[in-house]
Protein backbone atom coordinates (compact mmCIF):
# COMPACT_ATOMS: atom_id res chain seq x y z
CA UNK A 1 0.00 0.00 0.00
CA UNK A 2 1.28 3.46 -0.85
CA UNK A 3 1.00 5.96 1.96
CA UNK A 4 -0.76 9.11 0.85
CA UNK A 5 -0.29 10.87 4.16
CA UNK A 6 1.71 10.37 7.32
CA UNK A 7 0.07 7.79 9.58
CA UNK A 8 -1.68 9.27 12.60
CA UNK A 9 -0.47 7.60 15.77
CA UNK A 10 -2.02 8.29 19.14
CA UNK A 11 -0.33 7.36 22.42
CA UNK A 12 -2.36 7.33 25.63
CA UNK A 13 -0.21 7.91 28.69
CA UNK A 14 3.05 9.84 29.16
CA UNK A 15 4.79 7.64 31.72
CA UNK A 16 7.97 5.72 30.94
CA UNK A 17 6.23 3.51 28.32
CA UNK A 18 4.44 6.36 26.53
CA UNK A 19 7.55 8.55 26.48
CA UNK A 20 9.79 5.82 25.00
CA UNK A 21 7.12 4.91 22.44
CA UNK A 22 6.80 8.55 21.40
CA UNK A 23 10.56 9.06 21.12
CA UNK A 24 10.97 5.92 19.00
CA UNK A 25 8.27 7.10 16.60
CA UNK A 26 9.76 10.60 16.39
CA UNK A 27 13.16 9.05 15.58
CA UNK A 28 11.47 7.30 12.67
CA UNK A 29 10.15 10.61 11.35
CA UNK A 30 6.58 10.35 12.62
CA UNK A 31 4.63 12.90 14.67
CA UNK A 32 2.62 11.15 17.41
CA UNK A 33 -0.12 12.70 19.52
CA UNK A 34 0.45 11.94 23.21
CA UNK A 35 -2.58 12.27 25.49
CA UNK A 36 -2.01 12.31 29.23
CA UNK A 37 -3.80 13.35 32.40
CA UNK A 38 -0.74 14.92 34.02
CA UNK A 39 0.31 18.55 33.73
CA UNK A 40 3.73 17.36 32.55
CA UNK A 41 5.10 14.05 31.29
CA UNK A 42 6.53 11.42 33.64
CA UNK A 43 3.60 9.25 34.66
CA UNK A 44 2.91 8.35 38.27
CA UNK A 45 6.35 6.88 38.94
CA UNK A 46 8.28 9.88 37.64
CA UNK A 47 5.60 12.40 38.44
CA UNK A 48 6.81 16.00 38.69
CA UNK A 49 5.62 18.46 41.35
CA UNK A 50 3.86 21.65 40.21
CA UNK A 51 5.87 24.76 39.31
CA UNK A 52 7.49 26.46 42.30
CA UNK A 53 8.58 23.28 44.10
CA UNK A 54 12.31 23.04 44.68
CA UNK A 55 13.31 19.48 45.61
CA UNK A 56 15.79 17.98 43.14
CA UNK A 57 15.17 14.76 41.15
CA UNK A 58 17.66 13.08 43.51
CA UNK A 59 15.45 14.01 46.47
CA UNK A 60 12.27 13.03 44.64
CA UNK A 61 13.26 9.81 42.88
CA UNK A 62 16.31 8.59 44.85
CA UNK A 63 18.40 6.09 42.90
CA UNK A 64 16.04 6.40 39.91
CA UNK A 65 16.75 10.14 39.50
CA UNK A 66 18.94 9.68 36.41
CA UNK A 67 16.24 7.70 34.63
CA UNK A 68 13.53 10.17 35.62
CA UNK A 69 15.53 13.17 34.49
CA UNK A 70 16.45 11.53 31.17
CA UNK A 71 12.79 10.84 30.37
CA UNK A 72 11.63 14.31 31.40
CA UNK A 73 14.35 16.08 29.37
CA UNK A 74 13.79 13.87 26.32
CA UNK A 75 10.05 14.35 26.24
CA UNK A 76 10.10 18.08 26.98
CA UNK A 77 12.62 18.59 24.16
CA UNK A 78 10.49 16.71 21.63
CA UNK A 79 7.40 18.66 22.68
CA UNK A 80 9.24 22.00 22.54
CA UNK A 81 10.61 21.27 19.09
CA UNK A 82 7.10 20.50 17.90
CA UNK A 83 8.01 16.92 16.95
CA UNK A 84 5.04 15.53 18.82
CA UNK A 85 1.73 16.92 20.06
CA UNK A 86 1.24 16.71 23.82
CA UNK A 87 -2.33 16.97 25.10
CA UNK A 88 -1.83 17.61 28.83
CA UNK A 89 -4.49 17.29 31.53
CA UNK A 90 -6.60 15.30 29.08
CA UNK A 91 -8.42 12.01 29.64
CA UNK A 92 -9.41 9.57 26.92
CA UNK A 93 -12.90 8.69 28.06
CA UNK A 94 -14.05 6.53 25.15
CA UNK A 95 -12.88 4.91 21.94
CA UNK A 96 -15.01 4.06 18.97
CA UNK A 97 -13.96 3.07 15.44
CA UNK A 98 -10.45 4.53 15.36
CA UNK A 99 -11.52 7.63 17.22
CA UNK A 100 -10.64 8.74 20.73
CA UNK A 101 -12.98 10.93 22.71
CA UNK A 102 -10.72 13.14 24.76
CA UNK A 103 -11.93 15.18 27.72
CA UNK A 104 -9.84 18.25 28.41
CA UNK A 105 -10.42 21.65 29.92
CA UNK A 106 -12.18 22.89 26.78
CA UNK A 107 -14.65 19.99 26.65
CA UNK A 108 -14.56 16.81 24.58
CA UNK A 109 -12.63 16.63 21.32
CA UNK A 110 -12.35 13.72 18.92
CA UNK A 111 -8.89 12.56 17.84
CA UNK A 112 -8.76 10.08 14.94
CA UNK A 113 -5.92 7.62 14.65
CA UNK A 114 -4.54 4.96 12.34
CA UNK A 115 -2.58 3.22 15.09
CA UNK A 116 -3.06 3.42 18.85
CA UNK A 117 -0.50 2.78 21.58
CA UNK A 118 -2.02 2.37 25.03
CA UNK A 119 0.40 3.02 27.90
CA UNK A 120 -2.19 3.48 30.62
CA UNK A 121 -0.15 2.16 33.56
CA UNK A 122 -1.48 0.65 36.74
CA UNK A 123 -2.87 1.59 40.11
CA UNK A 124 -2.68 -0.06 43.51
CA UNK A 125 -4.25 -3.49 43.85
CA UNK A 126 -6.21 -3.13 47.06
CA UNK A 127 -8.10 -5.60 49.20
CA UNK A 128 -10.85 -4.65 51.64
CA UNK A 129 -10.09 -4.65 55.35
CA UNK A 130 -13.15 -4.15 57.59
CA UNK A 131 -13.48 -0.40 58.17
CA UNK A 132 -11.50 0.63 55.08
CA UNK A 133 -14.26 3.03 54.02
CA UNK A 134 -13.17 5.34 56.87
CA UNK A 135 -11.60 8.69 56.10
CA UNK A 136 -7.82 8.45 56.26
CA UNK A 137 -7.50 5.11 54.46
CA UNK A 138 -5.54 5.65 51.27
CA UNK A 139 -3.70 3.55 48.71
CA UNK A 140 0.07 3.20 49.09
CA UNK A 141 0.44 4.98 45.77
CA UNK A 142 -1.54 7.90 47.20
CA UNK A 143 0.86 8.17 50.15
CA UNK A 144 3.79 8.23 47.74
CA UNK A 145 2.20 10.77 45.38
CA UNK A 146 1.33 13.06 48.30
CA UNK A 147 4.94 13.03 49.44
CA UNK A 148 6.48 13.31 45.97
CA UNK A 149 4.17 15.82 44.31
CA UNK A 150 3.01 17.84 47.32
CA UNK A 151 5.57 17.31 50.08
CA UNK A 152 2.94 16.16 52.58
CA UNK A 153 2.15 13.13 54.74
CA UNK A 154 -1.53 12.17 54.61
CA UNK A 155 -1.73 11.76 58.39
CA UNK A 156 0.07 12.47 61.66
CA UNK A 157 0.56 8.82 62.63
CA UNK A 158 0.77 6.37 59.77
CA UNK A 159 0.38 2.61 59.40
CA UNK A 160 1.12 0.94 56.05
CA UNK A 161 -0.44 -2.43 55.24
CA UNK A 162 -0.38 -4.86 52.32
CA UNK A 163 2.46 -6.50 50.48
CA UNK A 164 4.87 -5.80 47.65
CA UNK A 165 7.83 -3.59 46.85
CA UNK A 166 5.82 -0.38 47.26
CA UNK A 167 5.03 -1.22 50.90
CA UNK A 168 8.68 -1.13 51.90
CA UNK A 169 9.56 1.74 49.56
CA UNK A 170 6.78 4.08 50.69
CA UNK A 171 7.52 3.24 54.33
CA UNK A 172 11.20 4.07 53.94
CA UNK A 173 10.45 7.27 51.99
CA UNK A 174 8.01 8.51 54.64
CA UNK A 175 10.41 7.73 57.49
CA UNK A 176 13.21 9.57 55.66
CA UNK A 177 10.96 12.58 55.07
CA UNK A 178 10.24 12.80 58.79
CA UNK A 179 6.73 11.32 58.94
CA UNK A 180 5.60 9.37 62.00
CA UNK A 181 5.31 5.80 60.68
CA UNK A 182 3.99 3.59 63.48
CA UNK A 183 4.07 0.24 61.66
CA UNK A 184 4.62 -1.37 58.24
CA UNK A 185 2.60 -4.58 58.15
CA UNK A 186 3.22 -7.19 55.45
CA UNK A 187 0.64 -9.95 54.94
CA UNK A 188 3.31 -12.06 53.24
CA UNK A 189 5.41 -14.22 55.57
CA UNK A 190 9.20 -14.39 55.52
CA UNK A 191 8.87 -17.98 54.34
CA UNK A 192 6.74 -16.93 51.36
CA UNK A 193 9.22 -14.18 50.52
CA UNK A 194 12.19 -16.58 50.67
CA UNK A 195 10.51 -18.98 48.27
CA UNK A 196 11.01 -16.43 45.50
CA UNK A 197 14.71 -15.98 46.30
CA UNK A 198 16.16 -17.24 43.03
CA UNK A 199 13.70 -15.36 40.84
CA UNK A 200 14.38 -12.15 42.77
CA UNK A 201 18.12 -12.77 42.46
CA UNK A 202 17.76 -12.13 38.71
CA UNK A 203 17.99 -8.40 39.56
CA UNK A 204 20.44 -8.50 42.49
CA UNK A 205 20.90 -4.72 42.77
CA UNK A 206 17.16 -4.07 42.93
CA UNK A 207 16.61 -6.92 45.40
CA UNK A 208 19.46 -5.70 47.59
CA UNK A 209 18.13 -2.15 47.53
CA UNK A 210 14.79 -3.49 48.75
CA UNK A 211 16.49 -5.24 51.67
CA UNK A 212 18.37 -2.07 52.62
CA UNK A 213 15.10 -0.10 52.63
CA UNK A 214 13.48 -2.86 54.68
CA UNK A 215 16.32 -2.60 57.21
CA UNK A 216 15.69 1.14 57.54
CA UNK A 217 12.16 0.38 58.74
CA UNK A 218 13.65 -1.43 61.73
CA UNK A 219 11.12 -2.85 64.17
CA UNK A 220 8.26 -1.06 62.44
CA UNK A 221 8.23 -3.88 59.86
CA UNK A 222 6.30 -7.08 60.57
CA UNK A 223 5.93 -9.98 58.11
CA UNK A 224 3.15 -12.55 58.06
CA UNK A 225 0.55 -10.40 59.81
CA UNK A 226 -3.23 -10.85 59.85
CA UNK A 227 -5.26 -7.66 59.42
CA UNK A 228 -8.42 -7.65 61.49
CA UNK A 229 -10.20 -4.30 61.54
CA UNK A 230 -9.71 -0.58 61.07
CA UNK A 231 -11.21 1.25 64.07
CA UNK A 232 -12.65 4.69 63.34
CA UNK A 233 -14.26 7.66 65.08
CA UNK A 234 -16.34 10.42 63.49
CA UNK A 235 -13.36 12.14 61.89
CA UNK A 236 -11.84 8.94 60.51
CA UNK A 237 -9.24 6.25 61.23
CA UNK A 238 -8.35 5.84 64.93
CA UNK A 239 -6.44 2.52 65.09
CA UNK A 240 -5.68 -0.76 63.34
CA UNK A 241 -6.37 -4.13 64.95
CA UNK A 242 -4.05 -6.86 63.70
CA UNK A 243 -2.29 -10.06 64.75
CA UNK A 244 1.42 -10.63 64.41
CA UNK A 245 2.95 -13.75 62.88
CA UNK A 246 2.77 -15.45 66.29
CA UNK A 247 -1.00 -14.80 66.47
CA UNK A 248 -0.76 -12.15 69.21
CA UNK A 249 -3.44 -9.45 69.10
CA UNK A 250 -2.12 -5.95 68.48
CA UNK A 251 -3.77 -2.53 68.40
CA UNK A 252 -1.87 0.33 66.77
CA UNK A 253 -3.35 3.81 67.12
CA UNK A 254 -3.05 5.85 63.90
CA UNK A 255 -4.99 8.41 61.86
CA UNK A 256 -3.87 7.30 58.41
CA UNK A 257 -3.55 3.89 56.77
CA UNK A 258 -1.93 3.28 53.38
CA UNK A 259 -2.77 -0.04 51.73
CA UNK A 260 -1.79 -1.95 48.62
CA UNK A 261 -0.92 -5.41 47.36
CA UNK A 262 1.28 -4.65 44.41
CA UNK A 263 -0.44 -3.36 41.26
CA UNK A 264 -3.56 -3.74 39.15
CA UNK A 265 -3.22 -3.03 35.44
CA UNK A 266 -5.39 -0.19 34.14
CA UNK A 267 -7.18 -1.89 31.25
CA UNK A 268 -10.44 -0.02 30.63
CA UNK A 269 -9.33 1.46 27.30
CA UNK A 270 -7.80 -1.81 26.11
CA UNK A 271 -11.18 -3.38 26.81
CA UNK A 272 -13.08 -0.70 24.88
CA UNK A 273 -10.81 -1.16 21.83
CA UNK A 274 -11.77 -4.83 21.78
CA UNK A 275 -8.54 -6.42 23.07
CA UNK A 276 -8.72 -10.05 24.12
CA UNK A 277 -7.92 -10.77 27.78
CA UNK A 278 -6.34 -13.73 29.51
CA UNK A 279 -6.40 -14.55 33.21
CA UNK A 280 -2.94 -14.43 34.74
CA UNK A 281 -2.74 -16.99 37.54
CA UNK A 282 0.30 -15.44 39.15
CA UNK A 283 -0.91 -11.83 39.14
CA UNK A 284 -4.46 -13.01 39.93
CA UNK A 285 -6.03 -10.60 37.44
CA UNK A 286 -7.17 -10.38 33.83
CA UNK A 287 -4.57 -8.85 31.53
CA UNK A 288 -4.88 -7.86 27.85
CA UNK A 289 -3.44 -10.37 25.42
CA UNK A 290 -0.60 -9.25 23.16
CA UNK A 291 2.38 -10.74 21.37
CA UNK A 292 5.86 -10.19 22.85
CA UNK A 293 6.09 -6.80 21.10
CA UNK A 294 2.81 -5.56 22.56
CA UNK A 295 0.62 -6.07 19.46
CA UNK A 296 -3.02 -6.57 20.46
CA UNK A 297 -4.37 -6.59 16.88
CA UNK A 298 -6.49 -4.12 14.89
CA UNK A 299 -3.74 -1.49 15.00
CA UNK A 300 -3.70 -1.38 18.81
CA UNK A 301 -0.46 -1.81 20.78
CA UNK A 302 -0.03 -2.03 24.54
CA UNK A 303 2.99 -1.17 26.64
CA UNK A 304 3.92 -0.81 30.29
CA UNK A 305 2.16 -1.78 33.50
CA UNK A 306 -1.23 -1.61 31.75
CA UNK A 307 -0.44 -4.96 30.15
CA UNK A 308 2.53 -6.56 31.99
CA UNK A 309 3.40 -5.52 35.54
CA UNK A 310 7.14 -5.10 35.13
CA UNK A 311 7.64 -1.66 36.66
CA UNK A 312 9.22 1.46 35.21
CA UNK A 313 12.30 -0.14 33.61
CA UNK A 314 10.14 -2.72 31.89
CA UNK A 315 7.75 0.00 30.77
CA UNK A 316 10.53 1.92 29.02
CA UNK A 317 11.51 -1.19 27.08
CA UNK A 318 7.91 -2.15 26.31
CA UNK A 319 7.22 1.37 25.05
CA UNK A 320 10.09 1.10 22.58
CA UNK A 321 8.95 -2.36 21.48
CA UNK A 322 5.35 -1.26 20.89
CA UNK A 323 6.57 1.62 18.74
CA UNK A 324 8.85 -0.71 16.76
CA UNK A 325 5.93 -3.11 16.20
CA UNK A 326 3.86 -0.20 15.01
CA UNK A 327 6.61 0.96 12.63
CA UNK A 328 7.13 -2.49 11.15
CA UNK A 329 3.40 -2.94 10.65
CA UNK A 330 3.43 0.36 8.74
CA UNK A 331 6.22 -1.01 6.55
CA UNK A 332 8.77 1.44 7.88
CA UNK A 333 12.33 0.71 8.93
CA UNK A 334 12.62 0.08 12.65
CA UNK A 335 15.52 -0.38 15.07
CA UNK A 336 16.49 -3.95 16.14
CA UNK A 337 14.78 -5.37 19.20
CA UNK A 338 16.61 -8.53 20.25
CA UNK A 339 18.52 -6.85 23.12
CA UNK A 340 15.31 -5.28 24.43
CA UNK A 341 13.48 -8.60 24.27
CA UNK A 342 16.26 -10.27 26.28
CA UNK A 343 16.13 -7.54 28.93
CA UNK A 344 12.37 -7.81 29.12
CA UNK A 345 12.60 -11.57 29.71
CA UNK A 346 14.89 -10.94 32.71
CA UNK A 347 12.52 -8.31 34.12
CA UNK A 348 9.64 -10.72 33.63
CA UNK A 349 11.47 -13.36 35.68
CA UNK A 350 12.03 -10.84 38.47
CA UNK A 351 8.42 -9.64 38.36
CA UNK A 352 7.17 -13.24 38.63
CA UNK A 353 9.38 -13.52 41.70
CA UNK A 354 7.71 -10.45 43.19
CA UNK A 355 4.26 -11.87 42.47
CA UNK A 356 5.24 -15.05 44.27
CA UNK A 357 6.96 -13.31 47.22
CA UNK A 358 4.14 -10.81 47.81
CA UNK A 359 0.91 -12.55 46.87
CA UNK A 360 -2.66 -11.30 46.65
CA UNK A 361 -4.28 -12.08 50.06
CA UNK A 362 -7.03 -14.36 48.75
CA UNK A 363 -7.64 -16.09 52.08
CA UNK A 364 -8.04 -12.78 53.90
CA UNK A 365 -10.58 -11.59 51.32
CA UNK A 366 -12.54 -14.85 51.44
CA UNK A 367 -12.73 -14.59 55.23
CA UNK A 368 -14.20 -11.06 55.21
CA UNK A 369 -17.11 -10.72 57.65
CA UNK A 370 -20.51 -10.14 56.04
CA UNK A 371 -20.72 -6.56 57.30
CA UNK A 372 -17.39 -5.51 55.75
CA UNK A 373 -17.61 -3.03 52.90
CA UNK A 374 -16.29 -4.31 49.56
CA UNK A 375 -17.23 -1.36 47.31
CA UNK A 376 -16.01 1.87 48.89
CA UNK A 377 -17.87 4.02 46.36
CA UNK A 378 -21.36 2.88 47.32
CA UNK A 379 -20.67 0.96 50.56
CA UNK A 380 -21.77 -2.41 49.15
CA UNK A 381 -21.18 -5.09 51.80
CA UNK A 382 -19.56 -8.50 51.50
CA UNK A 383 -22.98 -9.97 52.34
CA UNK A 384 -24.60 -8.29 49.33
CA UNK A 385 -21.82 -9.52 47.06
CA UNK A 386 -22.05 -13.08 48.40
CA UNK A 387 -25.84 -13.10 48.05
CA UNK A 388 -25.56 -12.10 44.41
CA UNK A 389 -23.98 -15.50 43.75
CA UNK A 390 -27.09 -17.20 45.10
CA UNK A 391 -29.26 -15.37 42.56
CA UNK A 392 -26.91 -14.81 39.65
CA UNK A 393 -24.42 -17.64 39.94
CA UNK A 394 -20.74 -16.92 39.99
CA UNK A 395 -20.59 -14.45 37.10
CA UNK A 396 -18.97 -11.03 37.33
CA UNK A 397 -21.48 -8.94 35.38
CA UNK A 398 -24.53 -10.51 37.02
CA UNK A 399 -22.90 -9.86 40.39
CA UNK A 400 -22.50 -6.24 39.30
CA UNK A 401 -26.15 -5.81 38.30
CA UNK A 402 -27.46 -7.55 41.40
CA UNK A 403 -25.25 -6.02 44.08
CA UNK A 404 -24.08 -2.79 42.35
CA UNK A 405 -20.49 -3.70 43.21
CA UNK A 406 -18.35 -2.19 40.46
CA UNK A 407 -21.04 0.25 39.40
CA UNK A 408 -19.85 3.16 41.50
CA UNK A 409 -17.62 6.05 40.61
CA UNK A 410 -14.36 4.06 40.43
CA UNK A 411 -16.01 1.66 37.93
CA UNK A 412 -14.69 -1.42 39.69
CA UNK A 413 -11.03 -0.43 39.75
CA UNK A 414 -10.72 -0.93 43.51
CA UNK A 415 -13.37 -3.58 44.26
CA UNK A 416 -13.48 -5.96 41.32
CA UNK A 417 -10.72 -8.36 42.35
CA UNK A 418 -12.05 -8.75 45.90
CA UNK A 419 -15.67 -9.05 44.77
CA UNK A 420 -14.74 -11.76 42.26
CA UNK A 421 -12.86 -13.62 45.00
CA UNK A 422 -15.93 -13.55 47.26
CA UNK A 423 -18.34 -14.68 44.58
CA UNK A 424 -15.98 -17.44 43.45
CA UNK A 425 -15.82 -18.73 47.03
CA UNK A 426 -19.61 -18.57 47.34
CA UNK A 427 -20.21 -20.31 44.00
CA UNK A 428 -17.43 -22.85 44.61
CA UNK A 429 -15.43 -21.99 41.51
CA UNK A 430 -12.07 -20.46 40.63
CA UNK A 431 -11.85 -16.63 40.33
CA UNK A 432 -11.14 -16.78 36.58
CA UNK A 433 -14.39 -18.72 36.03
CA UNK A 434 -16.28 -15.68 37.39
CA UNK A 435 -14.99 -13.56 34.49
CA UNK A 436 -14.47 -9.82 34.56
CA UNK A 437 -16.54 -6.65 34.40
CA UNK A 438 -17.30 -5.37 30.91
CA UNK A 439 -15.62 -2.00 30.43
CA UNK A 440 -18.01 0.90 30.00
CA UNK A 441 -17.43 4.36 28.54
CA UNK A 442 -16.89 6.99 29.77
CA UNK A 443 -13.93 5.56 31.67
CA UNK A 444 -13.67 8.83 33.64
CA UNK A 445 -16.63 10.91 34.87
CA UNK A 446 -17.55 13.51 32.27
CA UNK A 447 -19.98 16.40 32.75
CA UNK A 448 -22.82 16.62 30.21
CA UNK A 449 -21.71 20.19 29.48
CA UNK A 450 -18.47 18.83 28.00
CA UNK A 451 -20.46 17.34 25.13
CA UNK A 452 -22.51 20.46 24.36
CA UNK A 453 -21.40 22.53 21.41
CA UNK A 454 -22.02 26.23 20.87
CA UNK A 455 -24.95 27.10 18.60
Amino acid at each position, binding site marked *: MIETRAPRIAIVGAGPAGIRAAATLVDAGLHPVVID*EGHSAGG*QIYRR*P*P*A*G*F*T*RTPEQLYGPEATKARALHVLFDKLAEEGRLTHCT*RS*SVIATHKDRLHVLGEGGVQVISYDRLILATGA*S*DRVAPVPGW*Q*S*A*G*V*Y*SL*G*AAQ*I*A*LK*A*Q*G*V*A*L*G*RRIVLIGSGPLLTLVGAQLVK*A*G*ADVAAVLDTSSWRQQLQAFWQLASRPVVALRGLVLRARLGDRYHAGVTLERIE*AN*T*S*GVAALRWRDAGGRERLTPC*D*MIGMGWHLRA*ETHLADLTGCAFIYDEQWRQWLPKTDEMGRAGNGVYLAGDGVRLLGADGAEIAGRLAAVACLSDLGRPAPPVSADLRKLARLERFARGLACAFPWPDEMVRALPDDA*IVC*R*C*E*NVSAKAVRESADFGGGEANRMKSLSRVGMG*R*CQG*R*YCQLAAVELVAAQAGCAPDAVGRFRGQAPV*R*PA*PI*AAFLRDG
Partner: protein
Amino acid sequence: MITAGRIVRLAERDRAEMPFVLDGQMRSALAGDTVLTAMLASGYALRSSEFGPEPRVGFCLMGACQDCWVWQDEGPRLRACTTLVVEGMRLRTTPPETWP
Protein backbone atom coordinates in the same frame (compact mmCIF):
# COMPACT_ATOMS: atom_id res chain seq x y z
CA MET B 1 -2.95 27.27 60.63
CA ILE B 2 -1.11 25.57 57.81
CA THR B 3 -0.94 22.26 59.67
CA ALA B 4 -4.29 22.56 61.43
CA GLY B 5 -5.86 19.73 59.44
CA ARG B 6 -5.49 16.07 58.62
CA ILE B 7 -2.28 16.20 56.64
CA VAL B 8 1.21 17.28 57.62
CA ARG B 9 3.53 19.38 55.48
CA LEU B 10 6.97 17.76 55.51
CA ALA B 11 8.73 19.65 52.71
CA GLU B 12 8.39 22.54 50.23
CA ARG B 13 7.03 24.86 52.91
CA ASP B 14 8.55 28.04 51.47
CA ARG B 15 5.94 28.66 48.79
CA ALA B 16 3.78 31.78 48.67
CA GLU B 17 0.59 31.71 50.73
CA MET B 18 -2.63 31.68 48.78
CA PRO B 19 -5.99 32.56 50.35
CA PHE B 20 -9.10 30.54 49.55
CA VAL B 21 -12.50 30.03 51.13
CA LEU B 22 -13.54 26.74 52.73
CA ASP B 23 -17.16 26.43 53.88
CA GLY B 24 -17.41 30.22 54.05
CA GLN B 25 -14.22 30.68 56.13
CA MET B 26 -11.02 32.25 54.85
CA ARG B 27 -8.17 29.72 54.79
CA SER B 28 -4.63 29.75 53.56
CA ALA B 29 -3.02 27.31 51.11
CA LEU B 30 0.39 27.39 49.44
CA ALA B 31 0.84 28.08 45.72
CA GLY B 32 1.07 24.70 43.98
CA ASP B 33 -1.20 22.89 46.44
CA THR B 34 -3.85 20.66 44.96
CA VAL B 35 -7.39 21.34 46.13
CA LEU B 36 -7.07 18.13 48.17
CA THR B 37 -3.89 19.32 49.92
CA ALA B 38 -5.35 22.77 50.53
CA MET B 39 -8.59 21.45 52.04
CA LEU B 40 -6.99 18.75 54.18
CA ALA B 41 -4.23 21.03 55.48
CA SER B 42 -7.04 23.18 56.91
CA GLY B 43 -9.68 20.59 57.71
CA TYR B 44 -10.67 16.95 58.07
CA ALA B 45 -13.05 16.23 55.17
CA LEU B 46 -13.50 16.83 51.47
CA ARG B 47 -17.11 15.69 51.40
CA SER B 48 -19.51 13.24 53.03
CA SER B 49 -20.18 9.77 51.67
CA GLU B 50 -23.57 9.53 49.93
CA PHE B 51 -23.91 5.94 51.13
CA GLY B 52 -22.65 5.98 54.70
CA PRO B 53 -22.03 8.21 57.71
CA GLU B 54 -18.29 8.73 57.17
CA PRO B 55 -16.49 11.75 55.74
CA ARG B 56 -14.39 11.16 52.63
CA VAL B 57 -10.89 12.47 51.99
CA GLY B 58 -9.79 10.86 48.70
CA PHE B 59 -8.16 7.46 48.23
CA CYS B 60 -5.85 7.06 45.21
CA LEU B 61 -4.62 10.63 44.51
CA MET B 62 -4.10 9.74 40.85
CA GLY B 63 -7.49 10.46 39.36
CA ALA B 64 -8.60 6.81 39.24
CA CYS B 65 -10.98 6.32 42.19
CA GLN B 66 -13.06 9.53 41.91
CA ASP B 67 -13.49 9.65 45.70
CA CYS B 68 -12.38 13.28 45.97
CA TRP B 69 -14.84 15.29 43.84
CA VAL B 70 -15.71 18.45 45.79
CA TRP B 71 -18.24 21.21 45.48
CA GLN B 72 -17.61 24.92 44.93
CA ASP B 73 -19.98 27.72 45.95
CA GLU B 74 -20.51 28.26 42.24
CA GLY B 75 -19.47 26.38 39.16
CA PRO B 76 -18.66 22.74 38.45
CA ARG B 77 -17.46 20.16 40.92
CA LEU B 78 -13.68 19.57 40.96
CA ARG B 79 -11.57 16.45 41.31
CA ALA B 80 -9.53 17.60 44.30
CA CYS B 81 -6.43 15.44 43.73
CA THR B 82 -5.78 16.60 40.16
CA THR B 83 -6.84 20.26 40.38
CA LEU B 84 -4.49 22.95 41.66
CA VAL B 85 -5.95 25.46 44.09
CA VAL B 86 -6.45 28.95 42.68
CA GLU B 87 -6.50 32.18 44.70
CA GLY B 88 -9.99 33.03 45.89
CA MET B 89 -11.45 29.58 45.14
CA ARG B 90 -14.64 29.03 47.16
CA LEU B 91 -14.70 25.36 48.13
CA ARG B 92 -17.18 23.47 50.28
CA THR B 93 -17.50 20.08 51.95
CA THR B 94 -21.29 19.96 51.50
CA PRO B 95 -23.46 20.45 48.38
CA PRO B 96 -24.71 24.03 47.81
CA GLU B 97 -28.25 24.78 49.02
CA THR B 98 -29.41 24.99 45.39
CA TRP B 99 -28.56 21.32 44.83
CA PRO B 100 -31.80 19.33 44.89
